[in-house]
């Protein structure tokens, strides 16, 4: 890897790392979703510094070029991220369902208390 490529990659990694931390600081991103991004930026940072490790990984997975290994890594990262989102969405769906049900039950109680239908015959 050329020194210029190395520096560019390191800057990108540091940028992602700081950007994610800043999102957490500004409460735009919750801690529970930040770990995967931080872990990825740190992993990339290490692989750029320890290029031999990337070559070793490339050899281990049977890839020809280190870039292929990086692409596979990126794909795995995106897949894990998607699964994490799906898990979270499933939880949110349950929570929304319970809230809508609770809201419906409470609204009915209020209607009964007020003794009004709020409807006129058409």
């Amino acid at each position, binding site marked *: 890897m050329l020194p210029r490529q190395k520096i560019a990659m390191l800057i990108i990694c540091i940028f992602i790392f700081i950007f994610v931390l800043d999102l957490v600081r500004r409460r735009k991103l919750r801690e529970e979703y930040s770990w995967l991004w931080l872990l990825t930026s740190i992993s990339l940072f290490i692989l750029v510094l320890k290029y031999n490790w990337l070559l070793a990984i490339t050899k281990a997975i049977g890839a020809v070029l280190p870039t292929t290994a990086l692409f596979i890594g990126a794909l795995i990262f995106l897949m894990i991220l998607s699964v994490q989102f799906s898990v979270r969405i499933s939880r949110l769906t*349950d929570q929304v*369902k319970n809230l809508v*049900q609770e*809201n*419906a*039950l409470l*609204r*009915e109680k209020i209607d009964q208390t007020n003794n009004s239908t709020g*409807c006129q015959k*058409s």
Partner: protein
Amino acid sequence: MEKKHIDKKLAILPVYNEQDKITEVIAEIKSVDTTIDIVVIDDGSTDRTACNAKLAGARVLRHTSNMGYGVALQTGYKYAFQNGYDLLVQLDGDGQHDPAYIPELLELIISEGADMALGSRFLKEVSPASPFLRKYKASTTRILGIKMFAFIATALIGLRITDPTSGYQAFNRRLINFFTRDIFPYDFPDADVIVLAHRAGFKIKELPMVMYERDEGVSMHSGLKPLYYVFKMFLSIFMTIVRKKPIPLY
């Protein structure tokens, strides 16, 4: 003579945009059983369904948005449990289910000790006249689907189930409580609910009845949904089997 204990009964109708049918269905239920309370769960309708139901004398639980049939059902279960009902019968608000069967369905629970009573289209052939309904006639694919899940449910629970997709059901209070929990599969609840209830030790019985086809409106099994339904049902049944046996808390 000691006064016979009278169970608190509730009929729940999950509906979505059924303003034309709902009044008639509520009136029919009232004519069949004057002691039963009726709750309509309006799943985010954009028409006068909720108002018509209220004016017809039912209580209405309104979802702020369209959450789906299973969620609407569970809202009804939660209402029933919170308000101390002993028996619950669920039927569709679009007129597919004839309220005349309510007493027989509840009788399976009261006298025959079932926890769950299911209305079955395939146990008996009868054809009563009805002014606005046609007798239930499903497509061959749908019938095949129903038969397949009936076979699976029967094989898994060791009890003959002929119509696992029937939404015309009745439960006792223990089962009502069981289904208020997050274990209820609210995404197209069908055969998986039966397998789940059986695994939890509830007694299930079927009652032969005639059901009718919708003559208007959109079925919840339209478009590509049947494909997803089959996938979901297989996965859900499989998961129900591999998970730890659920324990009724009530």
